[in-house]
């Protein structure tokens, strides 16, 4: 059962991580590319960390919860990074493709 759960979490984590980076590689302008890593990756890593926590708790040396800390760190920092990246892109006036609805302005 645990094995199955672990496998699921690991696989899900890896898949989300992959998809996040796929977005980075695949999408067509910076603003859309920004979305993949900031969300999918965060969740992917989150899944993996939960898996790790379960795994090491199961290993015997007491519960292992410190992985939560990394998740917490990521949840605080990833949005700030994304925000600043978006700001920088706006500052540099990077081009947009597809849709041009809504004009960023100061």
């Amino acid at each position, binding site marked *: 059962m645990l094995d199955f759960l672990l496998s699921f979490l690991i696989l899900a984590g890896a898949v989300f991580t992959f998809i996040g980076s796929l977005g980075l590689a695949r999408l067509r302008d910076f603003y859309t590319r920004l979305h993949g890593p900031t969300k999918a990756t965060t969740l992917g890593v989150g899944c993996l960390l939960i898996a790790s926590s379960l795994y090491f708790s199961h290993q015997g040396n007491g519960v292992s919860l410190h992985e939560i800390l990394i998740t917490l760190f990521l949840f605080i*920092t990833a949005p700030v990074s994304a*925000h*600043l990246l978006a700001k920088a892109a706006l*500052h540099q*006036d990077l*081009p947009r493709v597809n849709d041009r609805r809504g004009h960023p302005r*100061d």
Partner: protein
Amino acid sequence: MTLFLAVLTPFLGAPLVAWLSRYSRTAAAWGAGLVALGSVLLLVSIVAPVLAGETLVQRIGWLPQVGLDLAFRLDGLGLLFAGLILGIGLLVILYARYYLSERDSLGRLYAYLLLFMGSMLGVVLSENLIQLLIFWELTSLSSFLLIGYWKEREEARHGARMALAITGAGGLALLGGILLLGEITGSYELTVILASGELIRAHPLYLPTLILVLLGAFTKSAQFPFHFWLPHAMAAPTPVSAYLHSATMVKAGVFLLARLFPALSGTWEWSHLVGGVGLITLLMGAFIALFKHDLKGLLAYSTISHLGLITCLFGIGTPLAAVAGVFHIINHAIFKASLFMAAGIIDHETGTRDMRRINGLWKFMPHTATLAMVAAAAMAGVPLFNGFLSKEMFFAEAVSMGTMMKFGWLLPFAVTIAGIFAVAYSLRFVHDVFFNGDPIDLPRTPHEPPRWMKVPVEVLVALCLLVGILPALTVEPILALAAGAVLQAPLPDHDLAIWHGFNPALWMSVIALIGGGLMYAARKPMFALHARHENRLDARRVYNALLEGLLGFARGLTRRLDNSSLQRMLALFVSFALLLGFSGWFGGGFGNNSPLTGPRALLPVDAVSLFAALAMAGVSLAVLKLHRQRFVALVMIGAVGLLVALIFVKFSAPDLALTQLSVEVVTVILLLLALYFLPQHTPAESNTGRRARDAVLALLAGVGISALAWAVLTRPYTSIADYFLENSVSGGGGHNVVNVILVDFRGFDTLGEITVLALAGLAIFAMLDKLRLEGRGCDDVGRAWNWDTHPAIMASLTRLLLPLALLVSTFILLRGHNLPGGGFIAGLITAVALIMQYLANGVAWTHERLPSNMHPLIGAGLAIATLTGLASFAFDHPFLSSTFSHVHWPIVGEFELASAMAFDLGVYLVVVGATLQILIHLGLMHDASHGPDACPIPSGQRHKAGR
């Protein structure tokens, strides 16, 4: 000891006299005279056994291990020379008192003279040849000062430098020769060397030894082709010339020939080198002397000629010739000193030395003229004057030598020609100066000089006559003594009589006298001829060209090599390292026994690693391609650093990974801070050739280090590592072996390392003191900066992160001893947490909350680490001996306390302090940030501005 004192006295007297001259010129003269007299008295006190034919040797230990002791020797030759040096020295001191004008510092002259006198005494009284050389070079140095005495005169400076260069160079050659003599005989002591003549002459090193020694002697004695310095040394005040160029300096060379006569003479090489050079010098000097219009110039070339004569005599090599050589040394010293003094009087009285203007002085100074004429007669070799006697001996030796070899008849022939010229220039000296009509346009009206200025000349001229008329009564004892010392053997039969019958030598003298008279009479056309061909072959010009060439070469080479190009230095460094590395490997030829690959079992490659390696190589090469875009390069370097950390993780080095990660970020931040003040792009300024060269060097370096790494990685080894693994827990009290090594096994390294870090903080502080830089108002495409200095979202969330990061850093610090972590990483985390505050809130805001001076922190960290180490002194253990114990407290439970933890705390503090110190400095530099905001593209404006 007495001999040592006799030599030392003038050296000690020199500063004394310089000091005395502050009071009066007369006091200085008396002082100098008394100093010289002191030396005389010291010598007289021990002279008795020497007069009886003994050789006195006195020794003081200095460097006996290498055969270098202060060893002095007084024998006949030394005594003769010491007499000349001191006697003529005393006369020159008296003479100089009146010669030198009020403007010139008499004290300085006397001081230099005494230095020179002491050096000369040292030369002639040395038993140890190295010691002789020391004094030899001292004569060069002190004569440099004497010749350059009138330092504001260009020709004085030039002459002094030339004399030093030539005689100094000769001295170096002589040093080489003496070293070889020491090598051959096993000693530098004359006693041994003079007794080893056979051994020396038979040794394979004889010829180089001889040549080196002769180079020394010839340069000093102004022998051809080194003669040219001597006329230029005439820029010295005349007392100096009278001293240096009659009895002392130039005689040092012939003294050396005499001194080493038993050791070196008697071979084909000796007679041809010494005799040949002497003969050439004799002829050339005599010839040129005739045509010199400068009074002292004439005397200078005459000196050269007479030195050639003496050299020639030693070259002939027979015992009788040696006796004649010694005799002529005496005679020449006496008449030449008096002639220089006379010339000095004339110069002093008329204000010029140009014989074309000086005429008919007989009317103005008959007394001086008489003295000068007597001395000139001696120089010419006129019978009844001393010069005649030794010259006659020389003629006789030339004749007897001439009968012994093929073309030997040339020798008496050449010698006679030299004699003719000698008579001619002597005649010119007398006639052109004292007669020959009236003076032309003299600066001063001449009259007899002060009484005491003539006394030295009178004494010397009297000697000329005494020796010339009564040689057996006057000079014979000292000559016998000296010649005996030269030969180190019983003296040959010789007869110091004026009349030896009608022998060839007499005829040669007669021919010389008559021929000289005729030649002088027919001088006009010869002068004209000479004037046309003057400066054809001027050794001085050769010397100057050589010197200029040397200077030009030195300048050219130095400027070419040292062009202050860092790129060149680095390229040389890389090339040299490559050369060393490759030649080290292949040393002993390509067929050596070191295979590139060793037998060690290797790890298999997995896909992820292969991929990561490719990525790393790709990014690194991309940096090479893109490095001109500095910001992009920086971002990519971040990726490389991350991959390096991953390698550390992969290969079981978690501590390194942590360290690498933290250092990487701080480095990138520092680079970003710096980049703000620097151009954003690197210009493409290297040409293709340079880039190709650099690429080749870089590639070779890469190949080399790859090969080295591969070679080592594939080889097995036995390491001291097991000891650390075994003793880490039991001896160091920690489970993390790397950390235990850092704070315990090799804690001393770590102490040094934090000292380096502390120094970085301090040195940057010292370097950047008050440096202000102007930042850029726009980014690299000319866009104004974003208005939002401190994005609120970032600011509030990073504040939240601060306590969290500090907690983490405490965690890392405390666990370091047992698990990956430690003071350094913890320190960097703390620093980064604080840097984050700078990033989010700016310098001003942060500095209000953080002490802006981290020196106490750095100092405290270093102090804690050092004190931890010192604490072990109290338990009589070496520095940095650690201790630990497991403590059990109620509730808290068991925990470990280790001295190494205190050490790690020191590390932590230094890291935090130094890192922040560096940043704070940048913050201060940023005071003058942001230049004028004149940006073509305002911030946020819609504009296509791709990067």
